[in-house]
């Protein structure tokens, strides 16, 4: 060998698809060919089909159910009703928030679209026909469509099934420093107030929920293919609810057509398909239709804010007071860490240096679908950041200060980390002011302000909205974060075969985030095994290590960290093998990407692949054979990405229609594993932000009818409406406690984006003196604000005029 001592033979990390490589996605190969394997693609021999009958009323007593005509239809195998479920103790099931939820209604229906009965038939068309033949006699009760109706003296008690539930209050909860906050308000020069409603929204992945349950009488094993972002949680829940032994339950999440939080909870349809399969001893498929998905499965938001900021004349924030009233629907089934009743709402103002803050939160039952899922957000952080940035905009206006200057002045400074937020979180790192400067420069802030003033003279309404956000991502650490008592760690298992190829499995579950691509990149970074040599599998509870699944942007912070840690365990063993192969002691060995070498003779080395071969064919005496390991990662803290979003708009003064002129996004999510995928996540999030700000919401009329239960009423932006985005990635603050310095990113834009759009519209019409228009900022709402110069509420029930 002729290598000189300082010549490195380390692999080129980008070439092997390591960290920072915009590697093309491996999962694409099947999706572009139409060869994905989604739940509805699963076909098993002898499979039957299930359909659900849903309640047409929001609140009614069930007097009787007559299913005889359905039973008589040829091809019908089984009709399930609440009464039958009750005989097996399955009419109710626990929610993820320690409440109960009806599987099939027995006593009352409590929201429109609630599951009342199920038909299982040879063919889905027959199952649908049979549902229409079921006769249900309802006695209507007054529907409660918002928290205020629910809190009224004479309101009917929705949850009369619960002992000790005398009213419609779900919880009262508080966090922060009340006395300190009261003092801050006493000292304030200005108190800025804001009241608003974050409307009910639905994550609405294009693929609806579904399951194929397959109980095998001979082996006693239950296999369920199911649209779940968290298959291990489902397994645990099925074991508890259906009282089946956990090792006899296999949950498989195949390819998932988008999740966004909607596919975290356990839904009645899953439970019914499982019971039907057990009773009929046949596979049973249930595929929800879009109305079923929108009307009954995990919604998000629906929170009312009363916010106040205590301000000093010079612009310093002295204190923040928030009160939220959340509309939880008929069952409290938020999918969130048990300890926190209103999710992580108290992450509000984490990016600002606020001396004192206090939050009170109240939850109320209404006659609406349950949910409260983390829709592209870390447990109500979306509401927290929206409230924060709407309050900040109003505060700057009240002080007569420039929007950018007010934020800059109050940001947590770069040298102030770790920083304790007013509600007790510990933020890890960030360069907030720098991100803001990048954004302002990109949008050409000063010039836009001039242009805006000019335009206004000619009657044109231009507006600019700034929103910033920092989000606690990567729940959690197990001291504080659990769901149903299960600690929120995650896991990875890596098996390196003797030829140096590897299989990696994690407890997370990709739904479009590209785990099959990025996890292999982390292995490549840690071990120098080319990413193409690592296959990634997730979603099968029989093979994947136990993990809490993918939501709340927790995969890179938690499962991704586990991938790095398991790779390091493998490297530690490979080092021993290398020492054996090189006949030197371990201390004399150095690592460079893909290779160990002798410190004193760098030309003498062995590759990671050679170590892998040795692990199976030439290990030292006394060493356990094989090169496989598992890591469970319990994060020391959450990761805190930061972002600045700036939008410019033009509002048509005649019609209230507004168009986005430009959208600039500056995201600092630490180290980017695959920049292409990160940018894809950001653009997806921005589009959901635009959707929520401009058109997407679920509301109800006074009779309890859901408006927004299909894609004709629930408006999602198409390519035609969606604006273009300008992304900036130049600010990188690695997470100090994550093994590869990464932070979560999947949701930042959906969390921080909405306020940028709304702030821009409010800025454009600032001369009206209108303080707030609730989202979505529909043209008719803008028109109303422009015409009548008053705030516009979007709270249900919708006005009939």
């Amino acid at each position: 060998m002729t290598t000189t001592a300082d010549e490195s033979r380390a692999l080129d990390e980008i070439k092997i698809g390591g960290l920072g490589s915009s590697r093309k996605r491996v999962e694409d190969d099947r999706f572009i060919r139409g060869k994905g394997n989604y739940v509805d693609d699963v076909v098993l021999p002898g499979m039957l089909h299930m359909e659900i009958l849903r309640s047409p009323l929001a609140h009614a007593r069930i007097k009787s159910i007559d299913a005889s005509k359905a039973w008589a239809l040829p091809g019908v195998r089984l009709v399930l009703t609440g009464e039958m479920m009750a005989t097996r103790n399955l009419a109710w099931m626990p929610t993820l928030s320690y409440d109960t939820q009806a599987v099939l209604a027995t006593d009352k229906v409590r929201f429109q679209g609630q599951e009342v009965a199920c038909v299982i038939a040879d063919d889905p068309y027959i199952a649908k026909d049979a549902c229409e033949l079921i006769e249900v006699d309802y006695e209507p009760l007054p529907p409660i469509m918002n928290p205020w109706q629910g809190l009224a003296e004479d309101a009917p008690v929705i949850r009369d099934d619960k002992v000790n539930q005398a009213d419609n209050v779900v919880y009262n909860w508080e966090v922060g420093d009340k006395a300190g906050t009261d003092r801050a308000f006493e000292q304030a020069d200005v108190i800025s107030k804001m009241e608003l409603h974050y409307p009910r929204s639905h994550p609405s992945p294009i693929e609806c929920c579904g399951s194929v349950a397959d109980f095998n009488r001979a082996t006693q094993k239950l296999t369920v293919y199911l649209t779940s972002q968290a298959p291990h949680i489902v397994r645990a829940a099925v074991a508890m609810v259906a009282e089946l032994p956990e090792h006899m339950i296999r949950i498989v999440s195949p390819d998932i057509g988008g999740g966004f939080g909607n596919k975290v909870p356990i839904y009645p349809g899953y439970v019914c398909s499982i019971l039907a399969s057990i009773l009929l001893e046949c596979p049973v498929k249930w595929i929800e239709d879009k109305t079923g998905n929108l009307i009954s499965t995990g919604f998000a938001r629906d929170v009312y804010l009363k916010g106040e900021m205590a301000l000093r004349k010079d612009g310093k924030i002295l204190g923040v007071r928030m009160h939220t009233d959340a509309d939880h629907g008929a069952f409290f089934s938020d999918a969130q860490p048990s300890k926190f009743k209103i999710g992580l709402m108290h992450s509000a103002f984490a990016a600002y240096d606020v001396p004192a803050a206090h939050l009170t939160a109240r939850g109320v039952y209404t006659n609406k679908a349950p949910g409260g899922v983390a829709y592209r957000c870390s447990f109500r952080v979306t509401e927290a950041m929206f409230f924060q940035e709407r309050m900040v905009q109003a505060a700057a206006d009240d002080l007569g200060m420039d929007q950018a200057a007010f934020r800059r002045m109050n940001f947590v400074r770069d040298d102030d980390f770790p920083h304790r937020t007013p509600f007790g979180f510990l933020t890890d790192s960030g360069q907030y002011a720098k991100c803001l400067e990048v954004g302002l420069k990109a949008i050409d802030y000063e010039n836009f302000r001039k242009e805006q003033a000019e335009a206004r003279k000619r009657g044109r309404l231009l507006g600019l909205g700034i929103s910033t956000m920092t989000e606690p991502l990567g729940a959690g650490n197990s001291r504080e974060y659990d769901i149903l008592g299960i600690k929120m760690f995650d896991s990875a298992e890596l098996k390196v075969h003797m030829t140096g190829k590897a299989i990696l499995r994690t407890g997370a579950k990709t739904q479009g985030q590209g785990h099959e691509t990025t996890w292999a990149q982390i292995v490549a970074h840690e071990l120098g095994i080319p990413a193409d040599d690592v296959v990634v599998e997730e979603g099968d509870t029989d093979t994947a290590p136990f993990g809490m699944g993918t939501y709340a942007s927790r995969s890179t912070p938690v499962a991704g960290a586990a991938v790095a840690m398991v790779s390091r365990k493998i490297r530690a063993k490979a080092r021993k093998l290398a020492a054996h192969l090189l006949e030197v002691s371990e201390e004399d060995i150095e690592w460079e990407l893909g290779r160990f070498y002798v410190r004193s003779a760098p030309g003498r080395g062995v590759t990671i692949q050679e170590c892998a071969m040795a692990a199976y064919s030439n290990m030292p005496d006394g060493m356990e054979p094989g090169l496989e390991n598992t890591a469970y990662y319990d994060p020391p803290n959450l990761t805190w990405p930061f972002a600045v979003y700036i939008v410019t708009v033009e509002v048509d003064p005649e019609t209230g229609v507004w168009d986005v002129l430009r959208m600039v996004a500056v995201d600092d999510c630490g180290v980017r594993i695959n920049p292409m995928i990160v940018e894809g996540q950001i653009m997806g999030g921005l589009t959901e932000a635009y959707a929520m700000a401009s058109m997407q919401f679920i509301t109800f009329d006074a009779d309890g009818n859901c408006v927004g239960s299909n894609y004709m009423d629930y408006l999602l932006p198409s390519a035609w409406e969606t604006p273009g985005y300008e992304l900036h990635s130049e600010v990188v603050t690695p997470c100090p406690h994550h093994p590869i310095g990464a932070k979560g990113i999947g949701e930042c834009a959906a969390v921080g984006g909405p306020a940028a759009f709304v702030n821009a519209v409010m800025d454009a019409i600032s001369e009206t003196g209108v303080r707030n228009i609730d989202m979505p900022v529909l043209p008719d709402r803008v028109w109303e604000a422009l015409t009548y110069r008053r705030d516009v509420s979007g709270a249900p029930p919708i006005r009939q005029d």
Partner: protein
Amino acid sequence: MTMVYDDTGDEATADVPVRKIRFTINGRKKVAEIEPRLLLADLIRRGVGLTGTHRGCDTTNCGACTVLVDGRAGKSCTMLAVQVDGREVTTVEGLATASELHPLQEGFKQEHGLQCGFCTPGMMLSAKALLDRNPDPTEEDVRWAISGNLCRCTGYQNIVKSVLWAAAKLREREPEPAEASAVNKVEG
């Protein structure tokens, strides 16, 4: 769909109406005996067993079920199977040849035009219908052509890039004579 029912002796069992249709799917000729109410999406997915055509909404809004019928993009969730009697259907499985991906498929991978992949087959077929009539579309043309296909993951920007990538690839592959492309434009 061919069905086997429990014979309960009812008239209903005897009366399940059946129609016979002939159609071509991805170049293969097929005969099917179907209930007249069967939707095209079900004929493709459950009858022929091609599951690349997805169903998202059943109300003609999402476009996940988009296929080509005689070269025109249509939503198979709201077409009856009997409507393709004697016609030619192309699904995502018909885009690639045995040896080669269609440039749209390559483009979607190159430009990261998909995430969960659920909307992708429909997107590609709407895009194909566009490129067949307009080989050199603008960004606006693309946005308009796919406006009947919803995507919740990507924010569309990369989908638009993917389609433009494919258009460029197709043009460089088969440089069209000037008149031919003019004719094409008129038809489009």
